[in-house]
């Protein structure tokens, strides 16, 4: 009889190996899925994972890796703080939208003034603050009323989406846009554009994501707050006795993740997306949940996981245009990845033992 035995400490080996095994399993089952859809399985995998990196047109796809990876990494970093402490912010998509709206609002209010030194920093501040404030709603409600932050943060995604729709069609609509929905183009407004080098996919969101990785690494490796976050997640009672304030921790984790998501949203809207439109958000806030887990809630891991997830987005587009693979197949693929990761993870915390003839 096969039995599981709890390990005294999580296995070092499986901590690293689990994501890799999960990716391999997902590729195998993904290939089977593509086969079921009537697409050549191996070729489809090649289109997704090989073509964007080493194919003929990789000069076009590699910059996309930065563009798609940056928001995923930035949001996932923020989420990982809370996930470590058992605080579940799953409304990053909403914070992303509100950050973008606040930052874009600053730029649109000052248009057509040219003062990059003033406008762009003000946008960054507004974007971060918008995301922060939106995340504070579940934060404060949790601290003051004990409200479930999972449900509140998620409900606020739908509220934010409606707000975005009303802004794109109303207040922020381009007055010179011939009646089309959507705001002025921010990426072409030189004081507001988040591009640094458009041809290489470099924009301020990439810089923010990388700085975020460094800060998160230092936080967990060197700072007492990082230790407290881990402690609160693993042993809440011990954390309480050692004087960690749960309220402060909740507000810090939610606030930071909100601010990072807001910054990601702002840099997206002022760069790759270009303008505030009804559907400029493409679900990075939800995919970032997968990125955070796949990266083992570790800053460096998240960097790699973000790159991999960005690759599935880009490769999915390649496979869509060349093989006609439906876009939704990539969504299923990403969902499968999280399932496999969570399943394989049992080996990190448990040992498989073969027992003989014991009555359960």
């Amino acid at each position, binding site marked *: 009889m096969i039995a599981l035995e*709890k390990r005294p400490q999580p296995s070092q080996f499986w901590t690293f190996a689990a994501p890799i095994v999960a990716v391999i399993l997902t590729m195998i089952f993904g290939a089977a899925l593509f086969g079921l859809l009537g697409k050549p399985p191996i070729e489809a995998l090649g289109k997704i994972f090989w073509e964007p990196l080493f194919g003929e047109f990789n000069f076009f796809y590699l910059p996309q890796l930065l563009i798609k990876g940056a928001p995923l990494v930035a949001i996932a970093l923020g989420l990982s703080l809370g996930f470590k402490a058992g605080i579940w912010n799953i409304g990053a998509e909403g914070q992303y939208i509100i950050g973008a709206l606040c930052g874009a609002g600053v730029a649109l209010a000052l248009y057509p003034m040219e003062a990059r030194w003033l406008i762009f920093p003000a946008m960054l501040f507004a974007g971060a603050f918008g995301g922060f404030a939106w995340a504070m709603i579940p934060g404060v409600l949790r601290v003051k009323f004990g409200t479930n932050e999972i449900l509140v943060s*998620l409900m606020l995604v739908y*509220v934010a989406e409606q707000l975005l729709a009303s802004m794109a069609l109303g207040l922020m609509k381009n007055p010179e846009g011939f009646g089309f929905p959507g705001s002025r183009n921010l990426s072409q407004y030189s004081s507001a554009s988040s591009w640094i080098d458009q041809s290489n996919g470099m924009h301020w969101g990439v810089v923010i994501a990388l700085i975020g990785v460094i800060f998160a690494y230092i936080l967990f490796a060197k700072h007492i707050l990082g230790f407290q976050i881990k402690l609160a997640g693993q042993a809440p009672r011990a954390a309480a006795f050692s004087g960690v304030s749960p309220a402060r921790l909740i507000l810090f984790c939610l606030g930071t993740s909100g601010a990072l998501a807001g910054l990601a949203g702002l840099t997206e809207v002022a760069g790759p997306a270009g303008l505030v439109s009804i559907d400029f958000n493409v679900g990075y806030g939800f995919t970032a949940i997968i990125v955070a887990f796949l990266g083992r809630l570790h800053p460096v891991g998240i960097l790699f996981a973000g790159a991999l997830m960005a690759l599935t987005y880009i490769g999915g587009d390649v496979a869509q245009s060349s093989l006609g693979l439906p876009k*939704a197949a990539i969504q299923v693929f990403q*969902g499968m990845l*999280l*399932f496999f990761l969570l399943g394989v993870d049992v080996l990190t915390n448990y040992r498989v033992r073969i027992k003989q003839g014991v009555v359960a």
Partner: protein
Amino acid sequence: MFGSIDPLLLLASLMVAATPILLAAIGELVVERSGVLNLGVEGMMITGSIVGFIAAITTGSPWLGFIAAALSGAAISLLFGILTQYLMSNQVATGLALTLFGLGLAALLGQGYLGVKAPAFPDWHIPLLGDIPVIGPIIFQHDPMVYVGLAIVAGVWWFLKKTRAGLVLRAVGENHEAAHALGYHVVRTRLLAIMFGGACAGLGGAYLSIVRVPTYADSLTAGAGWIALAIVVFASWKPGRLLLGAYLFGGVTVLQLNLQAAGVQFPVILLALSLIAVGVAGLISLWRKDRLKSLGSAVSVALVAGGTICIPLLSGKMAPLKVEYLSMSPYIATILVLVIMSASGAPGSLGKIFHASR
């Protein structure tokens, strides 16, 4: 101002609007009473909605559609069950995975079915009862699934309260170590509960695509699964109160849709909405022991929420209220309700991992 809204029609559509949430919520209630938190309701609902829709279209029978939806919901919930019960994965993370996976799967399956119309599912005109004036059209002239939903709620109440198996399920949910020590099968009980929850969520989703809308569209559920989760909290894990909660939300949904159609001017509607919020909050606080405190917090929250809606609107002078702000109301109402009903009465082992070490 409200002249274009027929109160009778409003009340009649309330039961229909509440049914999908009611079905999903009653399933989740059983799951949570067994000590498992499955956040994948949204994913199971959307899976049920597309599988049920396809089955109904291909066979031409809505009933077969509902059966297929329940089976598919149970099947996909089993993924969650195996991961959390046998592989001891984190329930929150696995539930999220189930939602993300379900949304993708439904989008994939639904490609050829966008905009197709579902086969007709005629209303039941219950003889005698349906002929009662006023009450008849409100309560007794709906499609059969409305009553199936009510029957499931009654069945769950009876099961949890009056049967031995229901007692075991509650024991497993309150304290899985103790239940295990008494010789009950914790994992088996939970797997069955999870599958029941999946089947109910599937039914709820199919009700959306076959009866309520009645067509399939991407992101058809639009958060209904999450609202169902909130209603379970609102109901303090009790079936009776769950029914009330679902009808309350059905009411909010119907009202905002009607207001959208009527194009009511802004000040009136704001007044109406905040009045409803305060009224509902007051009603709920009557149940609670610390009435004054919760009433105070309810009113303050209602005022804050009203205020936040006001600010963007005031800049738009007195223009008719935009559709988007009305569409927010079910979600804002959910948040309000969650604030007022702080989680009391949650099963003791809710969300905890069970691993029998011996």
